[in-house]
């Protein structure tokens, strides 16, 4: 009897224990360990060496890291608006009564499920200076070639264009869902009042899909901050560090040079930065509602 009572008392804890164990092992411990690590020098192989605030001081003096943050922000500034405009435009078209709607929806979604590495290799060929398709098109109409990936001023915008192409399908779907929730009778009432297409779009559609826009902005901001595969494969962070993203730089510090303490400091600082940007965006967008 007593045995059963003990069992019954223990049972709820046993049920939640997998989650608690998982949380402690894979969330709480790594976070705590990371914070401790930021005050140490550690190359994984040798014992950790306490260095106080050295990693934090180094971070603010590290011009390449600051450059990588600015590169990431440049990427976001190009990528997010481009993503929203293109996705919303295509979603608006796909929301109309057009033929082969299902086919187009699948086609636009296809790049999302293709491996990032494959997409990156494909675009590397397209962006080729001498034999790339894009430059061949330009020269065939008498325009000069563009150094898509070899011109420091063009490399990051080129990566942003490619990332937009890769991810736009997902945001088209999200916008489509948002567009389909707008009640038809709002448009009918506006038409009766003589509103044109643009007026309907700006006065009804945009305000009504604001929550979707908010979600898309947050998702693409977080996705954009984690920019890694594209510069890692296409440019290695060059030319002249113009495409080195913050995550790529943190990776290099951690896994090329085994500066684990410093890489963790960078990672923690970067996570705080993402949090700050996302909270600011949230406040700004909520204010606009």
């Amino acid at each position, binding site marked *: 009897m007593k045995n059963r009572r003990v069992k019954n008392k223990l049972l709820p804890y046993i049920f939640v224990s997998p989650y608690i164990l998982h949380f402690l092992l894979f969330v709480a411990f790594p976070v705590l360990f990371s914070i401790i690590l930021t005050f140490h020098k550690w*190359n994984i192989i*040798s014992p950790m060496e306490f260095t106080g605030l050295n990693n934090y001081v180094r971070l603010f003096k590290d011009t390449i890291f600051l450059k990588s943050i600015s590169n990431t922000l440049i990427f976001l500034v190009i990528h997010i608006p481009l993503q929203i405009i293109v996705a919303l435009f295509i979603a608006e078209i796909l929301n109309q009564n057009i033929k082969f709607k299902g086919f187009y929806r699948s086609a636009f979604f296809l790049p999302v499920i293709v491996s990032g590495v494959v997409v990156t290799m494909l675009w590397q*060929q397209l962006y080729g200076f001498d*034999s790339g398709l894009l430059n061949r098109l330009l020269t065939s109409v008498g325009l000069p070639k563009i*150094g898509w990936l070899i011109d420091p001023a063009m490399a990051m915008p080129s990566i942003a264009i490619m990332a937009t192409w890769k991810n736009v399908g997902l945001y088209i779907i999200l916008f489509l869902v948002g567009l389909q929730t707008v009640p038809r009778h709002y448009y009918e009432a506006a038409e009766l009042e003589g509103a044109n297409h643009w007026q309907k779009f700006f006065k009804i559609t945009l305000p009504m899909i604001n929550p979707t826009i908010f979600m898309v902005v947050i998702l693409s901001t977080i996705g954009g901050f984690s920019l890694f595969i594209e510069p890692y494969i296409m440019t290695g962070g*060059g030319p002249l*560090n113009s495409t080195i993203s913050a995550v790529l730089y943190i990776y290099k510090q951690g896994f090329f040079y*085994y500066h684990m303490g410093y890489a963790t400091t960078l990672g923690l600082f970067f996570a705080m930065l993402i949090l700050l940007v996302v909270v600011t965006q949230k406040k700004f967008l909520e204010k606009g509602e």
Partner: protein
Amino acid sequence: MIIISKILFKVFIPVLLIITTFGCTKNSKSETDLLYWSSNLPEEILFAKYITTEWNENKKTYHIKFQPVPEGQSSEEVILAAVVGKTTPDIYSNMWQGDVEVYGLAGVLIPFDTLEGFWDFINERCDSTTIAEVTSSDGHIYQIPWKINPIMMIYNQNIIKELNLKEVPRTYSEFTSAAKQFQKDSDGDGYVDRWFGYSEVLVTWWQRFFDFYPLYLAASGGAPLIENNKAVFNNEYAVGVFKFLKNLYDNNYFSRERLSTKQDIFLSGVVATRFTGPWEIAHSEKFKPAGFEYGFQNMPVPDNYTGPVYTYCDPKNIVVFNTCINPQLAFNFIKFALSKKNDLKFLELTNQLPRRKGIDENPFYKEYFENNLKMKIFAEQAKYVKGTDINPKLKEVFDLISQEYEACVIYGVKTPEDAVRDAAEAVDLLFLD
């Protein structure tokens, strides 16, 4: 509820305990077994299989268990993970020489010089320069020189003939002049699409092993980059190499575009030369078009250079980890694997050079080199090669050089003098840290 409780207590929890207890233990092997990891290149797997089979069939005292290094993004990462998890093999045969110092100083490698018979073995296999090159800063030797792939210049013989050159360019001036002659816009679209050479334009640190570093060694007669934790490369040789390469990029004799993502640019005649290793022979023989002729030459040197032409040799060595319960037995196996006979087998199976002194003149290998004349060029070059300087921060050093290389050589935003000076200063700062 009671059934669930019973299942939890009687089945799930014991199973979980068993899995967590035994799932994390090291691969079990008997005390007389040794685990050997080779690289995962097919040819090297063949060789590793051959020597382990030979050993296990003929030496009954203990058994060698062989497996290729487990799959990972790179073998370096796999080794690091194994070191951290204490799941390292006893013997590993593909350790890049530049990585050894970090592991050696951290105490995860066995110093071979403490083992019986080591000095006799190493003095028979290597010359004093090679022994000095692999001696750690603490005076111990944690690696046995195994194989090298010297970097040389491969050239398209047909193009050299077309250009009516008397000989393959040997100096900076000859190379530049041939490059000027060869450069062309073959499809008439106003853009150059044939270059005399190509080197990878990525800033990744190890790419400099295929351009700056072998050229620096060639120009300086094998001078070091760092000595006693101080940069010693701020000199005329490094500046000269930067100037030479910068001139090639400035004049579009080398392409700034990444050409390596396309079809083989050397075999398709897009470039006339490349800086590469002996692995190119097997590849070229397999894929070259009909009538395609090629050869190898030393790295280009400054015009006034005299003396033997050195190069980087991409050395890979053998180490024994401290998880090995009997390092002396491991060493005995390594001696067997690196015997004269097995070095010949290694040559035949992999077309890579064992790092053995006088290999080009040793009668034992004569027949192989007579049948593989292109490999003989590399064997002759092997007398004048260098690996890496002994330093635990080598990757950072090459990264700093690579940053300045990109700024100066490829994009021309710095003068060679400034770039080399800035790289040297940054390296000195690195050692102050």
